[in-house]
């Protein structure tokens, strides 16, 4: 957004423009270029950085500051998983860690004022939505991946037969064969609802929080167009909402991470 173009826009146009993704085409399929580029870039940045850090990790002696921070992050995730899962938790910790760090990184773009990214990218893109988690594609991608991993984990632990048994014979247990056959479709329906509600609730919670936060930021930014008083009150409100997001951004990442760990740990439990 450059100054002159935003001055010519109506408030509705301004908001709509900010909530529009930059579209591109890959093999005849439309994609949100800004979401994918921001997401991958941030992921490459944080995970690449952690990779480099992990190569310099010292096993013995006093750890450096970077390693101490890195270990803090790891032990934070590890402690959550440890509380709910006994057994080899390396894989679950890895999934939870990835979810937490990536979502935290993408959410943190929110701390940049809404127009900064637009001004920076205006020279090569007509629109750039910087918060990748305010795009349902990202949140749904992560939650579906998590559910996929959960199903794989279930089959690995219980076997394909055990998993089918879980999908058809629970939560309602039939005493005899007839009861079992009668309850089978009901059980299956319940399990399917559960299976679908998990990724949907995960994805929509994160998406809703980030998208709504973005809209509020845009509304506050609109105040800046209403004279000197608007600029001042807008600045105060923006600061307040940003402080609130200091809580929301890590909290949403944390909730997503916790539920990921819970679902994966649940895959190990049999009814």
């Amino acid at each position, binding site marked *: 957004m450059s100054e002159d173009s935003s001055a010519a826009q109506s408030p509705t146009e301004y908001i709509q423009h900010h909530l529009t993704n930059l579209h591109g085409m890959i093999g005849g399929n439309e994609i949100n270029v800004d979401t994918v580029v921001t997401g991958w870039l941030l992921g490459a940045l944080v995970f690449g950085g952690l990779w480099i850090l992990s190569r310099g990790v010292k096993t013995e002696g006093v750890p450096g500051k970077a390693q101490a921070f890195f270990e803090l992050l790891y032990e934070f995730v590890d402690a959550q998983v440890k509380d709910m899962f006994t057994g080899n938790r390396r894989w679950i910790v890895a999934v939870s860690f990835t979810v937490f760090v990536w979502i935290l990184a993408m959410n943190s773009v929110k701390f940049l004022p809404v127009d900064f990214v637009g001004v920076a990218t205006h020279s090569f893109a007509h629109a750039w939505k910087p918060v990748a988690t305010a795009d349902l594609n990202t949140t749904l*991608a992560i939650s579906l991946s998590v559910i996929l991993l959960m199903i794989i984990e279930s089959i690995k632990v219980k076997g394909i037969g055990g998993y089918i048994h879980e999908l058809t014979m629970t939560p309602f247990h039939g005493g005899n064969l007839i009861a079992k056959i009668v309850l089978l479709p009901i059980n299956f329906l319940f399990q399917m609802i559960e299976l679908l509600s998990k990724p949907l609730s995960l994805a929509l919670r994160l998406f809703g929080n980030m998208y709504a936060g973005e809209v509020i930021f845009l509304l506050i930014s609109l105040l800046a167009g209403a004279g000197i008083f608007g600029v001042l009150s807008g600045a105060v409100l923006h600061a307040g909402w940003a402080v609130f997001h200091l809580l929301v951004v890590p909290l949403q990442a944390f909730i997503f991470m916790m539920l990921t760990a819970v679902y994966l740990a649940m895959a190990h439990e049999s009814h």
Partner: protein
Amino acid sequence: MNLGMTLLLQGIGFFIFLFVVYKFVLPPLADAVDGRRRQIADGLAEAEKGKASLATAQKEVDKIIAEAKAKASEIVALAEKQRTATIDASKSEAKAAGDREKQMAADEIAQLSVKAKAELRDRVADLAVAGAERILKREINPQVHSDLLGQLKAEL
């Protein structure tokens, strides 16, 4: 909202990052954390062991000190006894030596007095003979009357 390709790409991204995290990022970190946890546990156990051995050593030291004290007092008592014994012995020895000396002196005195008595007796006998000679105005032949004179000497 266009769900589809973007979702797929983000999902692929997620799995790539997950792979990197699981394969490269977390293992060295987990090793480091576990290693340090083990190190700390070992250190604590070592400290506990050190504490226990210190207590044992303290007990040993107390025992040795008590033993040494007992021994020292024993030695002091023994020395005391020996001292008294030595003093007593030297006392009695001195007394014995004194007694012996006294005895010797007394013997000498007795000897001297016997000797003096004998000398005196000889002289008295000579004097008596001389006196008798004078009284009788005649010479008594000592060879003739030696028996008589000897008898007189013995009577004296």
